[in-house]
């Protein structure tokens, strides 16, 4: 965890724990909470493209308060953006309580009023969630009902409007999801069956008034999916197929073609061996509660990226963002642990992970039918379009002695910047990256971690090198220093060192981290959802606490 904390800019990090406390006067009620305040002082730095910030310093913060009492739960989240930190949507402005809810669960019927997060199946049709690092929050404000009275049968329903910053999206979202666990539903008849069968399906409709005098906009847009999950002791097979009716939006350039999505995965796990393969095809399956929205706003569904989620800085330099207008992608990963005492396992064993992922555009033909049916294009179902992304990597974790262990990662990555970032004129960017992450336990109180990384690239900004040293002292304190050097930039004046230092102190569930230095511009992604982080130079402060 500490590795991640030090690698991700302090202003974006936070650990949320939970410590229960009983408050007098509330009977058996309990209040939980967590808080986070991030602030940054910005120095203008023309060399790295960090602009002057009129306010000099900016701050984001939030506090959750959750009250539970038996079957009842209620909560609020206060947020402040004074003003919003660089890289987050500027629509976050001021202060407010955008998230509040009350839930009562009575004998298999759970009703929530107010804000809610949930997902249907894998989320390809409906997923409401938040990620504070991304500045992403599409909580549904309305009602949510969950029915679990019958063993093996779960039905969920949602009805509301999505959060868009401190307001609501203009569209209304209505949805229902049903899931049947055949083994549980059929009871004793399936007792001897080692295979679990789970079937599910959902339907979501969005209503948004048509105010466009030029086009006949569908006011009610429906999307649905069906899914199946087969689980054996070592094997898990999952598949979900989704369909969406005509939904002209800004994202698809206002075409009326129906959308489809298919996601399949298989995992096999036994002692010392894990295998995962997954694939998906998306064709015009962006789904929003505002047809005219852009960016990460008012998104109803979630289309995960089938790529390795790198945590190391230079391996994650070019992350993949899911392309809702169309992509075909797949990923395979094999994890194997060489046993202790073997030639490759050594005294402590060795873990090896091979990962391969690739994404392409669709093979499509433009119809040039703007004036008639406006379907936009036809898709060749089994064809592959342009390469969007490819990542092939190997990761080895090895413990050498009780006081020394390390991770080695290397890979080759291809990145279509024109598609993923919406740029023009870039070739496919190819990088070779290598990481040595070594942890030395110096004594009972001090641990030193060093992270040496290199990324070779000819295109774009060229090659980078990175070094990090992090010293943990006791249980409460750490200091770290990092330098990222863009030594391979074609422009000599842009061969810049991005140096950064941090120190953190934590006790109990409290944590304070301060930092100073330069942060390079880049793309920050979580699960295929991304935002651009501009370059910055200055002090950072992050305070988190929970109870």
């Amino acid at each position, binding site marked *: 965890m500490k590795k991640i904390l030090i690698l991700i800019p302090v202003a974006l990090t936070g650990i949320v724990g939970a410590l229960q406390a009983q408050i007098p006067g509330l009977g058996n009620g309990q209040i939980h909470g967590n808080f986070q305040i991030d602030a940054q002082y910005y120095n203008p730095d023309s060399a790295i493209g960090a602009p002057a910030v009129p306010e000099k310093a900016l701050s984001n913060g939030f506090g959750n308060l959750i009250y539970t009492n038996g079957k009842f739960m209620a909560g609020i989240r206060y947020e402040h953006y004074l003003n919003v930190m660089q890289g987050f949507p*500027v*629509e976050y402005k001021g202060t407010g309580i955008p998230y509040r809810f009350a839930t009562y669960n009575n004998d298999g019927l759970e009703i929530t009023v107010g804000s809610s997060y949930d997902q249907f199946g894998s989320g390809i049709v409906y997923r409401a969630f938040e990620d504070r690092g991304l500045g992403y929050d599409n909580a549904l404000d309305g009602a949510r009902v969950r*029915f679990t*009275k*019958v063993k093996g*049968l779960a*039905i969920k*329903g949602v009805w509301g409007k999505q959060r868009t910053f401190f307001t609501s999206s203009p569209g209304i979202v*209505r*949805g*229902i999801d*049903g899931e049947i666990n055949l083994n549980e*539903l059929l009871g004793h008849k399936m007792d001897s069956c080692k295979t679990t069968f789970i079937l599910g*399906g959902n*339907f979501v*409709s969005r*209503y948004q008034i048509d*105010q*466009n*005098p*030029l*086009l*006949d*906009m*569908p*006011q*009610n*847009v*429906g999307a*649905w999916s069906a899914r199946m999950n087969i689980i054996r002791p070592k094997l898990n097979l999952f598949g979900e197929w989704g369909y969406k*009716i*005509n939904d*002209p*939006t*800004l994202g698809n*350039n*206002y075409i*009326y073609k129906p959308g489809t999505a298919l996601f399949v995965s298989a995992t096999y796990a036994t002692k010392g061996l894990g295998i995962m393969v997954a694939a998906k095809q998306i064709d015009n399956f962006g789904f929003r509660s505002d*047809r*005219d*929205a*852009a*960016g990460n706003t008012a998104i109803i569904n979630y289309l995960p990226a089938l790529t390795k989620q790198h945590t190391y800085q230079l391996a994650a330099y070019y992350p993949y963002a899911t392309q809702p207008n169309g992509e075909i992608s797949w990923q395979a990963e094999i994890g194997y642990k060489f046993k202790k005492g073997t030639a490759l396992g050594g005294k402590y064993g060795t873990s090896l992970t091979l990962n391969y992922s690739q994404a392409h555009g669709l093979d499509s033909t*433009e119809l040039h039918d*703007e*004036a*008639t*049916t*406006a379907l936009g294009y036809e898709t060749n179902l089994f064809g592959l379009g342009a390469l969007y992304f490819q990542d092939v990597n190997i990761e080895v974790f090895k413990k050498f002695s009780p006081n020394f262990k390390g991770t080695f990662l290397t890979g080759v990555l291809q990145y279509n910047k*024109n598609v993923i970032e*919406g*740029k*023009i*004129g*870039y070739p496919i960017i190819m990088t070779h990256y290598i990481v040595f992450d070594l942890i030395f336990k110096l004594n009972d109180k001090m641990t030193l971690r060093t992270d040496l990384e290199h990324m070779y690239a000819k295109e774009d900004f060229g090659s980078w090198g990175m070094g990090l040293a992090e010293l943990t002292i006791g249980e409460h304190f750490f200091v770290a220093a990092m330098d990222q050097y863009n030594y391979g930039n074609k422009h000599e004046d842009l061969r810049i060192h991005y140096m950064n230092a941090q120190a953190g102190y934590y006790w109990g569930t409290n944590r304070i981290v301060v930092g100073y230095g330069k942060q390079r511009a880049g793309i920050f992604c979580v699960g295929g959802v991304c935002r651009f982080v501009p370059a910055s130079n200055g002090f950072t402060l992050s305070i988190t606490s929970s109870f």
Partner: protein
Amino acid sequence: MKNAKYISVAAVAAVFLFSMCDYVTAPRDVVIGGGGNFDTTKRVALIEEWTGHTCIACPAAARDIHTLDSIYGESFIAISIHDDYFAEPCPPHPLPNCATGVPGAFAEDFRCPTGASYSATWPSGPSSPPQGLVNRLHPSDQVITRGAWPGLVDSVVNELAATSIHLEPTYNSATRALTFNVWGVWMQAYTGDLNVAVMLTESGMVGWQTDGTSCDSQFVFEHVLRECVNTPGSITGSPVFSGTSTIGTRWSYTLPTAYTLPVAFDASHCHLVAILYNTTTQEVIQAWEEDL
């Protein structure tokens, strides 16, 4: 089966929800062309949009603007702001792949200081074109995407105007000296501080444009912002009114010093756009366009 009733309820609910789908087979609502007759008592809709020759969705936005122009006629005005990344000439901007090896492709540069002034006022404007403003009816730092333009335009042109507006340009083709007088008569009581900014735009320039899959070397750029004539390099304009208006009274502004039209601009394709706006809210109260 005892659980059948629950499944039946879920099935009925699903059927109910599935009916919440509107299938559209003929997307076009209107017949393009014709133009409307301008009603002097109504507001004029003004779109100020960010665009650029390497912006792949901008040709579609240009078609939308052309359609709106053909529907609403004189009640509709557009200004296309070429600024920032997507309007940079190539080089230094990377050349679109579809023009690789073509000398001079995408070398056009329609950027201007007044465009930069627009971007400074609405920083999110040039970040992801095509997007823009319709009579600036939005919070000061927000712009809207092109799908929302037609609805707002239709709404604005059906509203009563607070004031009439008249723009009277005078252009000397020999000296290229340009002056104008802009004035209006209050038709409703209005309270606020108003400026008038008179923008110079030019149409008919032919150059390169990409839509992401192909390059068009003969794309015709329309309504291209060139300059703010009364406050060059700034969209601020000049104060014309402050306080509360009296119906029937007149406001006016005359350019004090003639503006010299740069020789690079084709006067026969240039237009003046007078924008009367509230300096506090930025909202455009009324606008008008005249050819030189």
